[in-house]
């Protein structure tokens, strides 16, 4: 798994590639935490290169969303969600809790 983080004026963009499982999910959670610890709560997660997402990754996502949405200070949104990953998000009931955009430009425009 590789993670890059780009800070924009109105939001942060996390691009994640490869596989998120119990081995790599802590790194994703740490990335969210370091952004949120800096007081930034508007985050776009670009999933275009994501190949696999387990329940450990789903937990990291939902925990970040809880922190970001507190006091209406922001939210995590998703972009470029592959079909298999969407199926997992949908099964877990997360597609109602996270906005999903077809591409990064539209997702960033949300903020």
């Amino acid at each position, binding site marked *: 798994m590789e993670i890059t983080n780009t800070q924009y004026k109105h939001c942060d963009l996390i691009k994640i590639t490869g596989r998120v499982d*119990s*081995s790599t999910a802590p790194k994703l959670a740490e990335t969210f935490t370091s952004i949120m610890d800096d007081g930034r709560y508007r985050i776009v997660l670009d999933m275009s290169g994501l190949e696999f997402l387990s329940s450990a990754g789903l937990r990291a996502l939902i925990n970040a969303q809880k922190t970001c949405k507190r006091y209406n200070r922001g939210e995590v949104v998703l972009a470029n969600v592959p079909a298999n990953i969407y199926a997992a998000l949908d099964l877990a009931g997360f597609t109602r809790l996270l906005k999903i955009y077809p591409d990064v430009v539209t997702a960033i425009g949300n903020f």
Partner: protein
Amino acid sequence: MSSVTFPGRYESLAKIGDWVREAAQHAGLDSFAVYAVETAVDEACSNIIEHAYGGEGIGDIDCSVEEISEGLLIRLHDNGQSFDPCCVPEPDIEGALEDRAGHGLGIYIMRQWMDEVHFEFSPTQGNTLTLLKRKAK
């Protein structure tokens, strides 16, 4: 039938995923079924490391696959503590964001995406989880 033993460590999960994905493709499962098998096996092995062994590096996970006429049969065996998956409450997948705990999702996904999930516990033989994924008709 093909069998491989992996060390019970989280870093094994990617290798287990590669191995079972290839087996599922070879068995003729469609691309979503292949992803479903990889997910179910990943969740099962994560549970073995976390709950059966109680941590990394305690024991191995024996994995085997068998192609049958219906589809693919996967068996995962460990020598850790048994646990009753019936005790794991179903996750709340409808509630509000603040009510979501995120736990119990692994077993839930496994049950939803596999056609059969069977746990067997023996004090002398260890734990065996059998998963069946049928081919699309």
